[in-house]
């Protein structure tokens, strides 16, 4: 099957513009990205779309090509933001798939408005605090150690720039902007919401909790905790993979998610979109 090529669009919300990539046909899948990789259509997206879904991939506030939405200050603001996005897209009850930081948003969305979620997929989601399994400090990791933390099998480091080579200021500023947006929602409490765990019982949608086998950022115990607390949740691990998940093993993650979504069609719940 030829790769699905996305269309690019902007949603106009009260607080600014949301950049969104859309590709494929089928039941709608709202994909909430991890801290990295905003604004891009990855092989994972193409594979999921190619499996017969309409993938809707917005950039979070302050990420990629979305506006900053400076009034959004904490995770609960992102819940309301994504309710606005779902409304603006004309969806009533989409599949929601979230990875890492985006998985935290998805879980919060699902406890807040369970009736708006057709199915829920959490890919090594942040959001919980397990005292014995702390999340590594991503803000303190230098680039060299970042790759070793995110990947089971880290890619070779990029060649060092020639001495005196000009800095790519735009790229540095763009990366700093996204780190700033991540910190806005995640610096303290550090990647968790103390109230989330006791609210997980509210989730009613069919749920898949998935994790990479070798997660050095958010220990796998977090995914296991989600799976234990969400009623009826399925649990899966992808072998030989780090927290980068759909960057490191796009085929395995796309296939895992696609088969879960296919086995829980939205039509079954009486709502197609």
């Amino acid at each position, binding site marked *: 099957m030829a790769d699905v090529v996305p269309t690019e669009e902007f949603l106009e919300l009260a607080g600014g513009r949301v950049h969104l990539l859309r590709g494929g046909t089928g039941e709608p899948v709202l994909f909430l990205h991890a801290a990295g990789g905003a604004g891009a259509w990855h092989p994972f997206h193409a594979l999921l779309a190619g499996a017969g879904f309409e993938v809707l991939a917005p950039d979070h506030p302050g990420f990629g090509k979305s506006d900053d939405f400076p009034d959004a200050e904490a995770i609960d603001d992102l819940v309301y933001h994504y309710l606005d996005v779902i409304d603006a897209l004309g969806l009533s009850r989409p599949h929601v798939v979230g990875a890492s930081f985006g998985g935290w948003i998805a879980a919060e969305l699902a406890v807040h408005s369970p009736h708006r979620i057709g199915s829920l997929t959490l890919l090594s989601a942040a959001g919980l605090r397990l005292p014995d399994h702390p999340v590594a400090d991503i*803000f*303190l990791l230098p680039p060299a150690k970042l790759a070793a933390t995110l990947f089971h099998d880290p890619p070779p480091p990029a060649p060092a720039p020639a001495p005196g080579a000009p800095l790519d200021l735009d790229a*540095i500023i763009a990366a*700093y902007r996204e*780190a700033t947006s*991540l*910190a806005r929602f995640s*610096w303290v409490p550090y990647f968790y919401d103390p109230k989330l765990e006791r609210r997980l019982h509210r989730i009613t949608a069919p749920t898949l909790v998935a994790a990479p086998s070798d997660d050095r950022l958010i220990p796998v115990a977090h995914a296991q905790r989600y799976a234990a607390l969400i009623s009826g949740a399925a649990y899966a691990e992808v072998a030989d993979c780090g927290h980068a998940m759909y960057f490191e093993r796009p085929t395995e993650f796309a296939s895992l998610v696609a088969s879960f979504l296919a086995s829980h069609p939205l039509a079954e719940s009486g709502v197609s979109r």
Partner: protein
Amino acid sequence: MKFSFFHLMPYPYLPDDFDEKYDSSALTYPNANFDPKLGSELYGRYLDELEYADQLGFDGIAVNEHHQSAYGLMPSPNLMAAALTRRTSSARIMVLGNAIGIRGNPLRVAEEIAMLDLMSGGRVDSGFVRGIGWEYFGHSINPVKSRERFDEAHDLIIKAWTSPEMFSWYGKNYEYRYVNIWPRPVQQPHPPIYIPGAGSTETMRFCAERKYTYMSVYAPTSIVRRWFDGYRQAAADLGYVPDPEKIAFSVPVYVADTDEQAHREARPALEWLYRKGLKQTAEMVTPPGYMSPGSLRGVLASGMRVLGGFSYEDLLANGQAVVGSAAAVADRLADLYEKLGGFGQLIGLFAIGPSTHQQVMRSAELFASDVMPALRPLGVAAERTTA
């Protein structure tokens, strides 16, 4: 020209394998390496040095705030200032400053500075700083909120000192139903304010609007010149020429009896300061949101390098340290005065890294006796030189 003796109170006893083993002397440098007995002796020694500077005739003695670091052992500058109020008599006691960006309770800062002002008989200067990058990690304060927390804390503290009646405060970061501090400060309308600047045009304007003293942090002369010019321009935009005293140049200073001796002793001390004391990773320097994208672009485009990248000779040539005999130091400071377009206060770091007590005391003596008189006439407002 006014002169102050600034102390960081460093913990100089780093292990031999520090360079290979540790990313920084702060935040992640284990405090198992801190020997409380040595630390206690250091506090006594460092307070002695500040008190001696008062006796030598320095106009000010200065302390500051740093956390979780061998670079500076003063998590609470106000405690050190309190100790100094009782054993000094004439120098201004300069708290440069309280890191109100990371404090949870700015009203406490207003209260403590007011206490110090009373205890010192109105000798306190109150600096406000945001707190540096690693301290946002160390105190789990969101760096994205650094500037708004600083601004709000500042506004609250000034109002707490000056409001003729009690009031309520409902801000984005702080809420108080009753602001009614006891005691109130003795200096009216409030103790003088010092703000360090590192290139932000917002800070230049903030200081110029309020006629606060704008002080530099350690950077090459060409860059500090741009900061001072920016402050002067911000004042000009508001229709006035700042009093020279409102511009303060901060620099490590070391004086010995001869140039040769001075350089021999200062080299390891300055290398310690810039390469070990200030050693930190890029992530620690600029946590996300600590700088605005525009400020970060400005810093990167200006070609500022990490401080540890400078050699001893670079530091001297760049005006990031002034070392020599009294005559050489006086000449060099007069030269820097010209290169910086003038300043009315010199904030000298005299106790540099692992310098010994004897070295620091001798350096301060020589500076007071042989450097200060030569520089005194510089940086004084025109109307006062003719008075």
